[in-house]
């Protein structure tokens, strides 16, 4: 992969995304679209860690929830959203860094990594659920146990606590954030750091023999993934106006993994599209009572593991690649538009 086509592909994706993001409010309410975008961002964080770093994290929800809780707690104490917003990214970043350091410097891999991340998420879930009493408080913010934390300051224009960002404005803010994050991640992956990360995924021993410290690099990548998930959590906190321990639940972690699997690993667009598609499916299914929501999601996961092990976006990309007689990997990134069109239509 040379540098130039990547820039071209990235710009094409960004352009297509901007067009779709501007057109989408004609089809769906911006309120729904906003949460779909937040899911997309969350899926991208795992797509980065898992698809490019080869680190299967069962606990991406931990960073998501941590971001949301950090924001909510800081917002109650400070009453203005700029610093809480930064904390919502920083806290999960640091936590993911610590957890990653513990795991990767201990040379843990695959299943054991899965167990540890899962367990950490569960610890958060159990702990947050048990914090109903008034003795559990950080500053003025009571953790609230099962009921979560309501009634904090949502996002406002920096420096002006009364100028809330909500509704359409919030939607366009999230669109802009997704654009920036996507561009930054693409840049990260195109940098030497990103290339070595992919090399570690392919063959860790070989990369280490070449003199790179795989442990440090995996930890750093894991921390970046944690920061993006935390950002998604922060935005969620502002969107939902309440944070509950459900953010840390196994179901939430499962959903993120399903998004990535269905969308396709090894791309950033894939998980994003997967999250938007399945998020919308869940939303549509939530409006009927005939079939249980969980049942459908489970079926989607089973069938996609069995039939589409590479995910929707890479598979589509491969078909297009065959049709155009181009290299499938390049084509895959250009296939954003039809897949998402399906979600909106």
């Amino acid at each position, binding site marked *: 992969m040379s540098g130039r086509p990547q820039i071209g592909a990235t710009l094409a994706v960004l352009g297509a995304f901007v067009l779709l993001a501007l057109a989408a409010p004609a089809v769906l309410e911006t309120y729904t679209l906003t949460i779909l975008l937040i899911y997309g961002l969350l899926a991208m964080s795992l797509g980065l860690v898992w698809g490019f770093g080869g680190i299967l994290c069962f606990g991406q929800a931990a960073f998501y929830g941590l971001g949301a809780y950090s924001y909510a707690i800081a917002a109650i104490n400070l009453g203005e959203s700029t610093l809480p917003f930064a904390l919502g990214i920083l806290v999960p970043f640091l936590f993911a860094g610590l957890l990653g350091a513990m795991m990767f410097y201990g040379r843990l891999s695959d299943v054991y990594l899965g167990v540890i991340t899962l367990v950490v998420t569960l610890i958060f879930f159990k702990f947050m659920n048990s914090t109903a009493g008034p003795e559990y408080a950080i500053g003025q913010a009571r953790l609230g146990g099962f009921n979560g934390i309501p009634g904090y300051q949502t996002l406002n224009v920096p420096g002006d606590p009364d100028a809330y960002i909500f509704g359409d404005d919030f939607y366009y803010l999230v669109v802009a954030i997704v654009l920036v994050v996507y561009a930054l991640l693409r840049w990260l992956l195109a940098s030497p750091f990103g290339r070595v990360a992919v090399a570690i995924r392919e063959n860790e021993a070989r990369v280490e023999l070449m003199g790179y410290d795989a442990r440090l690099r995996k930890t750093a990548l894991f921390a970046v993934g944690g920061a993006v998930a935390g950002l998604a959590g922060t935005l969620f906190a502002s969107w939902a106006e309440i944070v509950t321990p459900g953010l840390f639940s196994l179901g939430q972690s499962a959903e993120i993994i399903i998004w990535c699997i269905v969308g396709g690993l090894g791309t950033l667009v894939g998980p994003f599209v997967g999250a938007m598609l399945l998020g919308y499916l869940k939303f549509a299914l939530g409006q009927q009572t005939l079939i249980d929501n969980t*049942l459908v999601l489970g079926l989607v996961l089973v069938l996609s593991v069995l039939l589409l092990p590479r995910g929707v976006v890479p598979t589509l990309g491969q078909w297009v690649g065959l049709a155009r007689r181009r290299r499938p990997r390049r084509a895959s990134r250009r296939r954003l538009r039809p897949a998402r069109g399906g979600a909106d239509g």
Partner: protein
Amino acid sequence: MDLATVLIVEIFYSIAVLVVISAGLAVVFGMMRVINLAHGEFLMAGGYATIVAVNAGINIYVAMLIVAPLVVGLIGLVVERLVIRHLYGRLVDTMLASWGLSLVMIGLATMIFGNTTTGISPPIAGFAIGGYQINGYNFFIIVVAALLLVAMYALLAGTRAGLVARGTMQRADMAAALGYSPDRVYMVTFFCGSALSGLAGGLLAPLVGLVPTTGGTYIAKAFITVISGGASIIVGLLSSATLFGLVSQLFTFAASPVVGEVALLVAAVVLLRLLPQGITGRFFRGRL
């Protein structure tokens, strides 16, 4: 003195529960390297099978010890044929497919039984030790867990079927060359693992209020116990269940049940950090 007795019984009880809920997963993971994340839902299915059978007038012991394992074993058989069979050797894919399966089962249970709590009462009455009340059913679970371990060991180490199964897990091609069909061995092993999960679900049915999402509370513990145990099925299961049972019960006793649960999880993280191959990766190597 009374307190000490109660504490010891409780510790044995919590070890026994860990053994019971993890046994099915241990067989499937230890023998076949398949991580069945729908294990919790298999337990849930066993619980529902027991409750339905008891409500239909069947004796509760028959329901727990025979109906539940059979029903869940059959579910496992169907699952193995339809899904897992295609994914042997792909650890992560089996994990994900079985996770999807667990969601499907939760959805089905919600549609059939509704999102309400059901339960049956324990068949053995409690009794008092000094000033403390002890649940008589706890002893039953301890006894069943002990019998279960002995039976598993006897089956795997003492019978021809166990020998064939272990041989197939080590070298499937050799077993095939000697005339045993690995496909069939895998199928039977998965059936046995599922039946054990069903048994656990049946045994726990009188202790917990059953909801379709009950499985989630067990899967993590079972998963942790089995992975921390390491490669040896029975010794690994027993050693990690003992360690975690002890830790969680002592912390429950010293502080609160939530602290006990969290202590168990923290112990698991620390343990895996120190012994990344599980307990039997370092100690008791080569045992069954």
